[in-house]
């Protein structure tokens, strides 16, 4: 029901965001960005370096996610099927 709510009829902060069920993966970079912004705000020695550090951390975590996804894809789709059954 929620996912079919037309975007134009959506009332932000009252109704759940439409389309999340099928496009939830795009929320991960936003989530990582928010965490990185708070984490790097207290970790960087000089706050001038904060934007760069945040960008690096977001990139690293997103790449780690992609690496895990590729690794699991290969494991499930390639390696497991060629294992001897029984």
């Amino acid at each position, binding site marked *: 029901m929620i996912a079919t709510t037309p975007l134009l009829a959506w009332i932000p*902060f*009252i109704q*759940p965001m439409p389309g*999340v069920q099928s496009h*939830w993966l795009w*929320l991960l970079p936003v989530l990582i960005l928010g*965490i990185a912004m708070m984490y790097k705000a207290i970790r960087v020695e000089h706050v001038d370096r904060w934007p760069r550090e945040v960008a690096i951390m977001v990139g690293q975590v997103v790449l780690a996610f992609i690496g895990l996804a590729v690794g699991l894809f290969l494991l499930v789709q390639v390696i497991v099927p060629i294992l001897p059954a029984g």
Partner: protein
Amino acid sequence: MPFRWPSLLLGLVFPGLGHWMLGEKGRAIRVVAGFLLLWFGGLLIGGPMSVAFRSPGYSTGTGLEERRLWFLPQAGAGPIAFATAALGERLVPMGEDDLIEITLPDGSVGTISRDTPIGHAADFGTLFCALAGLMNVAVAIDAGRRPEPERRRAGS
């Protein structure tokens, strides 16, 4: 260096306030920026029910309302979390036209708001706000452990 409990408490009262009071205004602003992205991002994704004191009966398996464990990390955001949860209960439209019928765990028919988040919208809305609260606890602890700016400059 003794732990600064006032800074920790201020950080729990409002994100970044502990750092602000230590004179670390640049850090405080950046903390608030990250917090706002996570907190309001969660509310935007999942709606006001992303932050709630109790889980509704239809979702607990017992048919009874239960304390929502996800509120514990969200409570790390301090009064903002409690205010959001209290306000959220009033914001969800519960008029006659806003309700839809559902089957409850015991097989009976119940009603919920048409705007109840489900699936990934509920998951991510809750998760965003929970991580905002958890990160704020880490930030507040950092404020308690952080040396005064003058002392750090002298030591560097």
